C-alpha cells in the first residue's frame, strides 16, 4: 500500500513525522530522521534567545520519559543553515517556533519561512520553563499568537497544544478561527520524575514534561476532542510506540502523527518498524488509503446518556492454566471471582460487570455476556 498523505498542502511520503525534540535539533539530525524513513521533521523549538540546556535533563521512568529540556541551542541565524541542509537532503521541514508575544512569534515565523521551512508549528505549549500559566494557554491569547503568524507568512501554520489546560477544545477552536491549518497535540505532560527517598532529593531539579507510552491515553483523548470540535486536520502526538498506536490516533481523527520518545529509546531503525507495521496492517485489512480509517472510532464515542445500561456480567470462557497468578481474584473489588480446586468461577450474583478482570487476565479467559 502507498503510505503517502497530503497534509496541510504538503505531500508526505508517509504520515509519520518526527516531533520537535532532540531528534530534530540540527540539520544533520533531521537528515538522519528522513533517511530512516520519516515523512517529515518538526524542528526543535526555535526561539530568539538561546537558553542553555541543563545537565542532566532526561530520566526514564516506569511508563515514560521525563525531560527538563528547553529549546534549541542554535541561534536563529544558524537555523538558516540547518534547515537548508535538511532540505538539501530531502527533508520536509516544519519549523517549531516560540515567541512570547504575537509580534515576536510572527517575526520568527517570517524568518523561518525565509529560511525555507515548509510549514510552521507554534510551540507555545511546553509545560516547563514558561511559568505556571505557560506562554499562551488562554484561548484569546492563542488566537492572537496564531493570527499574528498566519497574517505574516504564506506557509501553513499548525498549532501544537498541551493537555495541561482546562479546555483543549476552546484552544483548538481559537487556533482554527485564527487561521491555523492544523492542530497537533499533545506536548509533554507536566511532571516530576520522582524522588530519591534515601536522599530526599527530587530526581530532576525542577518540574518537567512526561512523554512516551504513559501519556498516550491523554493524547488520544485530546485528539478525539480536537477532531470532533474542529474541521481542520489533526496531528496526533504522544506515546506512539507501535504501529497500532498510529492507527488508534487515526481512527480518532488524526491525519498524521508525530513521534519522539519511542525513537529516542529504540533508535532510528524504529521508524522503519513503525512504517512496516503500518503498511502490513493496512494491506492485510484491505485498506487503500488512510481516509478509509480516519475518524472511524469517533462514532463509537458516546455521552453517558447514550450508553445503554446492559446486564453484563463476567464469564469464564476456558480454564485457567496459570494456577498461581490469581490476578483476577485479587483485583475483583466485588469478590465475585472464586478459585476452587484450581478452577476459576465468577459468581454472577456478586459480579457488577465492571470489566476489570477482562483486561487484567494475562490469558484472556474472561468475557462479558448478558446475565442469563
Amino acid at each position, binding site marked *: 500500500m502507498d503510505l503517502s498523505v497530503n497534509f496541510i498542502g504538503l505531500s508526505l511520503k508517509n504520515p509519520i513525522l518526527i516531533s520537535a525534540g532532540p531528534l530534530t535539533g540540527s540539520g544533520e539530525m533531521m537528515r538522519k530522521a528522513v533517511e530512516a524513513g520519516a515523512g517529515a521533521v518538526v524542528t526543535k523549538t526555535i526561539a*530568539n*534567545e538561546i537558553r542553555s540546556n541543563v545537565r542532566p535533563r532526561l530520566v526514564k521512568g516506569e511508563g515514560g520519559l521525563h525531560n527538563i529540556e528547553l529549546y534549541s541551542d542554535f*541561534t536563529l*541565524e544558524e537555523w538558516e543553515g540547518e534547515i537548508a541542509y535538511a532540505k538539501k537532503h530531502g527533508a520536509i521541514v516544519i519549523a517549531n517556533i516560540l515567541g512570547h508575544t504575537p*509580534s515576536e512569534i510572527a517575526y520568527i515565523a517570517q524568518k523561518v519561512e525565509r529560511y525555507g521551512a515548509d510549514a510552521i508549528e507554534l510551540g507555545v505549549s511546553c509545560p516547563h520553563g514558561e511559568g505556571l500559566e505557560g506562554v499562551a494557554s488562554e484561548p484569546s491569547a492563542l488566537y492572537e499568537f496564531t493570527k499574528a503568524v498566519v497574517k505574516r507568512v504564506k506557509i501553513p501554520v499548525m498549532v501544537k497544544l498541551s493537555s495541561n489546560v482546562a479546555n483543549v477544545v476552546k484552544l483548538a477552536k481559537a487556533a482554527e478561527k485564527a487561521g491555523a491549518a492544523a492542530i497537533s497535540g499533545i506536548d509533554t505532560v507536566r511532571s516530576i520524575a520522582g524522588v530519591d527517598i534515601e536522599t530526599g532529593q527530587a530526581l530532576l531539579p*525542577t518540574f518537567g514534561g512526561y512523554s512516551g507510552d504513559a501519556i498516550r491515553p491523554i493524547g488520544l483523548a485530546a485528539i478525539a476532542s480536537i477532531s470532533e470540535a474542529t474541521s481542520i486536520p489533526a496531528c496526533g502526538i504522544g506515546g506512539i510506540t507501535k504501529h497500532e498506536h498510529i492507527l488508534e490516533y487515526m481512527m480518532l481523527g488524526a491525519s498524521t502523527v508525530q513521534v519522539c520518545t519511542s525513537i529516542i529509546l529504540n533508535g532510528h531503525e524504529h521508524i522503519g518498524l513503525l512504517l512496516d507495521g503500518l503498511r502490513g496492517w493496512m494491506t492485510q485489512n484491505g485498506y487503500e488509503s488512510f481516509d478509509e480509517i480516519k475518524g472511524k472510532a469517533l462514532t463509537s464515542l458516546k455521552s453517558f446518556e447514550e450508553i445503554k445500561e446492559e446486564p453484563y456480567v463476567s464469564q469464564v470462557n476456558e480454564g485457567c492454566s496459570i494456577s498461581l497468578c490469581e490476578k483476577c481474584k485479587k483485583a475483583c473489588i466485588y469478590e465475585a471471582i472464586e478459585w476452587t480446586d484450581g478452577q476459576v468461577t465468577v459468581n454472577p450474583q456478586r459480579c457488577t460487570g465492571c470489566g476489570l478482570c477482562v483486561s487484567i487476565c494475562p490469558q484472556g479467559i474472561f468475557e462479558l455476556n448478558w446475565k442469563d
Partner: protein
Amino acid sequence: MANIREVAKQAGVSVATVSRVLNHPESVSATTMELVLATMEKMQYTPNGFARSLALNRSSTIALLIPNILNPLYPQIAKGVEDVAHQKGYNILLCNTEENKEKERDYLDMLIEKRVGGFILTSSQLENKDLQKIKNQNVPFVMVGRNIEDIDANMVFTDYYMGAYQITQHLIEVGYSKIAHITGSLNQIENLEKRRGYEKALEEAGISLQSQYIVEGNNEIEGGYLGAKKLLKSKEKPQAIFAANDLMAIGAIDAIKSSGLHIPEDVAIVGFDDITMAALIEPKLTTISQPVYKMGLIAARLLFESIENGQQEDGFQQKIFLQPKLKVRKSCGHENRVREIFN
C-alpha cells in the same frame, strides 16, 4: 570590489572564519585557508577596512546609542546586539546619550559622517524631524524602547505600564495594602508609564492613592536610598515599596537595613529590570524581568535585515513587543514557592 560578507557567503563559511584567515591564520585549517584565500582572489577582495568602506560608501560598523552605560540594564542590550553583529562581521560603536537630546543629535551627525552601516537607538529622545535626516541619508535604523512621538520605524519595545501593574498587583496579592512607589526621573515616559501601572493596580484593588507614598527618585542607587528613608519617616510607614528600577530597590534595601528593619518582614521591596545583581543581593529581589538582552538581539536582527536586504519587500514596519515578566524571589515576602520555581 567584494566585502568580507560576500567572500564568506561565496566560500560557504562564516564571516568569523574569513576574519580568522586574515587575522589569526594559525587557527584555521589548511583546506579552509586555501578555499577562503582563493575566493578572496577571485572576488578581488582587499582586506583593508578603510579602502573597503570607501568603496562601499558604508563601513562595517553599526552604532548603538544608549542612555548610560553605568546602568546595568544597557550592557545587556549591547551584548544582544553584539552577539548578532559578530556573526555578521560587524563591530559596534557605543555612544552614551545621557537622555540628552542635543547630545544624541550630535552623535547622529558624527556617525552619519563616519558612514556607519546603521543605528540602533535606545530610549531615544529624538523627534521625527531628526529621524527624517537619517532616512534621507538612507541609513537603516531600529528603535529600542518606545518614543514619545509616533515614529515610523522598525522598533522593539516592552510595556512598562504592564510590568508595573503586574508587580503592584503581586504585592496586593501577597496581602499588602500600604504600598509605596519610588518613581524614576519623571521626565522619562517609561517612568510615567510605570507610575500609571502602579496607580491602576491600586485603583483596581480599591486602595486609595496616598501622595505621601509616592516619592521621586533619580534612577540611581542614592535615589532609592533617599526615597526609602523618606518613606520610612511617613506617619504610617508603608508595608511594601515598589522601586521603579532595581538600582533604586538596592538603595532602598540599604536604607531599610540601616534603619534596623528587616526585609520583607517589616517592609517588602520590589524592583524593575531584573539586573544580574537582583538575584544575588540579600534578600533576593522580586522584580520585573525586562527582556533586554532579547531586545538587543532582535534590534540587531532587524537592523541587519535592512542593511542586507534594504526595506522589507512588502514595506512592513516591524514593531515587536516583548512581554515583561514577573520574577518572584524573596524580597516581596511571598510564601508560595511554586511561583519562584516556575519563574
